[in-house]
């Protein structure tokens, strides 16, 4: 009885009942010691478990599986009697959508994987799903990668001359909006790369999520805080993997065949960019292998025709990875053209031997191909992408902030201790000043300034005496104003009686010489500082009166 028969109609798998799984270990007749999948063909065992353990009630839930290698691809089957893997390295959670089911897988940097949970998409696509739809051990974890079926991703190439990413993004967003008016969310899930055709033509290769199921799945993942940090499909991972090995992969049309035991996967690339893929179910062991090759060849020819229509060119090379060493030669004979064997890409990878017996979503890709550090084209919700881009900056900000906080904290402690060591003047003991003494010292400066000002000021009586001494005998004061405070100086008006101008001049010279002698330490007075006029009103006897007027700054 197929296991799906048991899974259908189940609701919940009680994770806490882990003890139940001990029964699996006790079941006899299971083969393999590493990663043993209970194939659908081993129905009696499933039936036995279902009856004894009452595991499957409504929804499909998987027993936590531990495998040394390979991914779930056969997670639709259960793993029985496998020793629990002890992860010593950091575990990353990835999610894979295949066959209408969402799988959660833990992988680590050593290439070990551990499928932990699965749920039918149908069960997830309900409005307001209950909290225990996803087990608590998975919720809120960092979902590093979501692998969706190839057909969930669309792609288009546009001629675009600029190499500015922001311009290209705006251009692609506009194109997608026109192409998918019913999917407004598509603007968050696209990206593009630039490439060149025929030396001169510049193109942008846009890839985007287009399947409506994705736009149902993503909000539900976000609801459980499992928003994927990267979203990709197997074709894009293979694209990068092959490109690294084959330099000419980026030119012309290339085909890639992945031959799994129960499935053939055809990928087509143009100028190194993924164009489309085909998934061909195979008959397995029930038919002759040659029948499978015929089926593959038929589908391949159909796809080559489709490719030539899409890309306006032919496939120039076909590559193959297969679970059988002879597949390349056999398929080459059926197809009538050379097929390049790429099995060395997967040789040494344990994925090969597991996938050799099972079919799955990502075929021969090994867990190490899916680690966060691996480079391949992927998408991310644009808002989340920005958040992730800013995360290092935030981290650096927090780190620098914490370092500063720590250093400033030390400074605070030092300052606190220091401030306690420094005593205020009042608390200094010994022969300290009294309040009155302190007050007197404060007054002292003021007093000293006032006294010095007083001393510096010229004494008015001294100025009067010196002016009197400076005047020659024939000079008579009429009016004199002596300023001592704001703008110290003397304004003098007087009269000089002289016999003639020469005599007047001599009198002025004497006056100036006397003043300069008596008032030293100031600008020297000159004849130009003295204004004069002839007194016209005086009676003309005994000489002429000259009225003089000058200011003497002190």
């Amino acid at each position, binding site marked *: 009885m197929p296991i799906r028969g048991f899974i259908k109609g189940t609701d919940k798998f009680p994770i806490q009942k882990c003890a139940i799984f001990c029964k699996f270990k006790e079941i006899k007749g299971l083969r393999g010691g590493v990663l043993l999948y209970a194939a659908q063909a081993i129905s009696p065992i499933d039936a036995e478990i279902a009856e004894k353990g009452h595991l499957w009630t409504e929804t499909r839930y998987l027993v936590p599986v531990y495998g040394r290698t390979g991914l779930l691809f056969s997670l639709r089957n259960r793993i029985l009697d496998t020793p629990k893997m002890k992860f010593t390295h950091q575990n990353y959670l990835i999610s894979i959508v295949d066959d209408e089911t969402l799988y959660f897988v833990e992988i680590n940097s050593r290439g070990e994987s551990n499928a932990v949970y699965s749920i039918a998409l149908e069960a997830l696509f309900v409005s307001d799903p209950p909290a225990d739809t996803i087990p608590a051990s998975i919720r809120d974890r960092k979902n590093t990668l979501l692998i969706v079926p190839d057909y969930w991703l669309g792609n288009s190439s546009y001629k675009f001359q600029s190499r500015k990413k922001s311009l290209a993004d705006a251009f692609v967003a506009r194109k997608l909006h026109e192409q998918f008016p019913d999917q407004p969310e598509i603007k968050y899930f696209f990206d593009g790369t630039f490439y060149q055709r025929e030396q001169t033509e510049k193109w942008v290769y846009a890839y985007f999520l287009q399947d409506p199921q994705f736009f149902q799945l993503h909000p539900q993942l976000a609801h459980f805080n499992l928003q994927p940090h990267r979203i990709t499909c197997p074709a894009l991972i293979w694209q990068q993997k092959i490109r690294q090995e084959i330099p000419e992969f980026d030119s012309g049309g290339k085909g890639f065949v992945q031959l799994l035991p129960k499935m053939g996967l055809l990928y087509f690339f143009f100028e190194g960019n993924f164009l489309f893929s085909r998934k061909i179910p195979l008959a397995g062991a029930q038919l002759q292998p040659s029948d499978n090759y015929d089926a593959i060849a038929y589908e391949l020819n159909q796809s080559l025709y489709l490719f030539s229509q899409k890309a306006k060119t032919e496939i120039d090379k076909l590559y193959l990875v297969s679970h059988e060493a002879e597949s390349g030669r056999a398929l080459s004979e059926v197809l009538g053209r050379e097929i390049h064997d790429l099995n060395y890409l997967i040789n040494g990878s344990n994925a090969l031997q597991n996938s050799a017996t099972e079919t799955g979503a990502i075929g021969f890709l090994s867990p190490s191909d899916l680690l966060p550090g691996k480079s391949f084209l992927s998408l991310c919700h644009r808002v989340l992408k920005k958040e992730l881009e800013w995360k290092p900056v*935030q981290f650096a*900000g*927090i780190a620098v*902030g*914490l370092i*500063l*906080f720590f250093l*400033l*904290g030390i*400074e*605070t402690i030092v*300052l*606190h201790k*220091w*401030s306690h060591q*420094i*005593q*205020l*003047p009042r608390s*200094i003991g010994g*022969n*300290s*000043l009294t309040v009155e*003494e*302190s007050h*007197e*010292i404060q*007054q*002292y400066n*003021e*007093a*000293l300034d*006032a*006294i010095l000002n*007083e001393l510096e000021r010229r*004494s*008015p*009586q001294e100025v*009067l*005496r010196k002016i*009197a001494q400076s005047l020659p005998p024939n000079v*008579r*004061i*009429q*009016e*004199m*104003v*002596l*300023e*001592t*405070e704001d703008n110290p100086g003397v304004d003098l008006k007087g*009269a000089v009686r002289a016999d003639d101008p020469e005599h007047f001049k001599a009198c002025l010279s004497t006056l100036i010489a006397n003043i300069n002698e008596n008032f030293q330490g100031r600008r020297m007075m000159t004849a130009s500082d003295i204004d004069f006029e002839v007194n016209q009103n005086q009676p003309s006897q005994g000489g002429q009166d000259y009225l003089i007027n000058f200011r003497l700054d002190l």
Partner: protein
Amino acid sequence: MVGLVWVGVLMIDLWNIEKIDQIRDIRTQREIFLRDQQFWNNNAKNISQILQRYSSFTQNVESLKLGLLQLENDLKANALSLGLKEVKFISQTEMAGEGRVPIKLVFNGTFKAASQWLDKLQEDLPCVGIQNIKVSLDPLAEQAKFQVSINYRYNLSLAESAV
């Protein structure tokens, strides 16, 4: 989270700056105090002399009117003793400032007498500051006419008022 950390950093930084300012103030006060103490120990006598002289620049009076009356009396007595004539004392209380009253003195006399009077004024009444002196000389008169503007500095002594 980043904001929270940096707000914390900012707050602790501001707190430290405040603390540093406090410490600096305390140190400054302490330094000033210690220097004052040293200065006082070395110059206590000089300080008291300076302060005494400074205090003589203002006259303690019970009331302004009494102070002016006493000043007028002293000034006139001095002037008359030196032979100065027609001494007028004009107090300009409407232009008075805080602790300061402008006064105008008008008298006639010789340069010599005026000079002696100013000497005596400066010696006996340090509370009087001379602002300006205007001298006018009539050619026919023997003596000059002096207009002296002075500032009378006073201090209302409440203790003395109470007594």
